[in-house]
């Protein structure tokens, strides 16, 4: 192949040289196709995700709405209750006022009648107390006198113990007092 024109030769050479390039191109094209496939796959997945996200977003939105609704209704209920309570309280207060007013007037009336009747009332109380005492005491006068004397006598004895520490002058004064007390009792108990 010596007579092959140089240009042709060149061309052949070039061609020779190009073949691997074409091969590599061919393989590249494959790779690109792969890539394209992958991208479209990715796109599809992306779309799915997008869709999912919108649906989640929607979901969230709707549940938020629902929650807000519940809170609103609960607030309303509570407000209702508070209002009712206030109303009742008001009613109650006013009725209490009435009651208190009633009581006050009653008290005033009582006060007036009490001051008017105080003396007669006290007289009645006194007389009934004394009848009760009389009934209680009846037939027991002696025991009561005895009881009083015993407690009186205890005092006398303790006075007596103190006598020893006194000066003769005070001494006879106290002794006279003691003897007077005893004499009073003697008279009471003998009568």
């Amino acid at each position, binding site marked *: 192949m010596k007579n092959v024109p140089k240009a042709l030769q060149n061309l052949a050479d070039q061609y020779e040289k190009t073949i691997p390039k074409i091969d590599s191109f061919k393989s590249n094209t494959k790779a690109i196709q792969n890539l394209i496939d992958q991208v479209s796959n990715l796109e599809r997945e992306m779309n799915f995700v997008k869709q999912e996200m919108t649906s989640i977003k929607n979901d969230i939105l709707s549940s938020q709405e629902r929650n807000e609704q519940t809170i609103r209704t609960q607030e309303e209920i509570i407000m209702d209750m508070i209002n009712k309570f206030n109303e009742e309280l008001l009613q109650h207060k006013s009725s209490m006022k009435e009651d208190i007013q009633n009581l006050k007037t009653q008290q005033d009336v009582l006060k007036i009648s009490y001051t008017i009747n105080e003396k007669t009332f006290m007289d009645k109380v006194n007389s009934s107390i004394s009848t009760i005492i009389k009934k209680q005491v009846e037939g027991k006068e002696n*025991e009561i006198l005895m*009881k009083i004397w015993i407690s009186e006598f205890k005092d006398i*004895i303790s006075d007596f113990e103190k006598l020893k520490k006194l000066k003769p002058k005070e001494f006879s004064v106290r002794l006279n007092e003691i003897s007077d007390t*005893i004499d009073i009792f003697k008279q009471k108990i003998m009568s």
Partner: protein
Amino acid sequence: MLVSEINIKLTILGQWGVGKTSIVSTLVGKDFPAMYIPTIGSNIARKEYNLTNNHIRLNIWDIGGQRSFNPLNPVFFSNLDSALLLFDLNNPKETLQEIKDTYLKNLAKFSPECIIYLIGNKSDLVKPEDSEILLNNIRKYQIQGFPIIFVSAKTQDNITELFTLVVYDFLKKLENSGNETQFQGISKNFLTSAAKSEDQLDDLIININEIDPNTLHKKITPKITKKNIMLTKNEVIPLKEIKDLKKIREFNIDKNKIKENIFSAFKNNLVVISELISELKKSPINALIDNIDTSLNDLSNLNKDFELKLDSILELEKSDKNN
């Protein structure tokens, strides 16, 4: 010359029912009690003897012998000058045993200096034929060293004589113990004013170891009946020990009588206190402190006694309600 005051504290002790109260009552001129009313606590009686230069006051404490009223309370045994230990000649065994077991021991403990007499009461109930048994019974107890005298509250036999002896013995002791000359001759003076001789008083005492049972009865039969006393023949009222005042109904004793009795004893003791105080007011300053101490002792005893009496009335009232 100043009249000096002499106070003698005499206590009468013995089992319930031996006749302590009867003896004191007849001594101070009251009637012999018609029936038995137990003494609750103590009753004080006073017997006075006036001599030219002396005024003698015998303070007689009659102590209830029923055990439920606490006759062994030490307060009844303190500061005594003399003591009569009474037994019942009609029931010598039991009543002497009581003296031996309790009263003598307490006296020795709380008033070791006091003059003690052993007194057999109810001599009117002793039959001649029982004399020997009686004397043997008394001997058996061997309570020795104390004069024994038989008396009867009912016939009043030997009653005034007994108390004359008590005062006489005390005055003799006073004469002999003091170095003060003011009491010289006082016992003789007393005998003269009481119109008694020393022999007569000696005669009261029964020598239990030597006496002939046949002569005993002559000795204890009253020579003269001193008061108009209806002497029913040797009747013996059965007496019972009272353990609980609330059950007084079982004893056939009139509850109201007991109540009356307690109250009158209460009043009586109050009067004694009032007298004690007015006597104290009269006593000379130097003797006052001593007198106050002894009076205080008596006063606190009496206060406990007042309480006992009130409590007893309240107990009786409870028995009222239960009936």
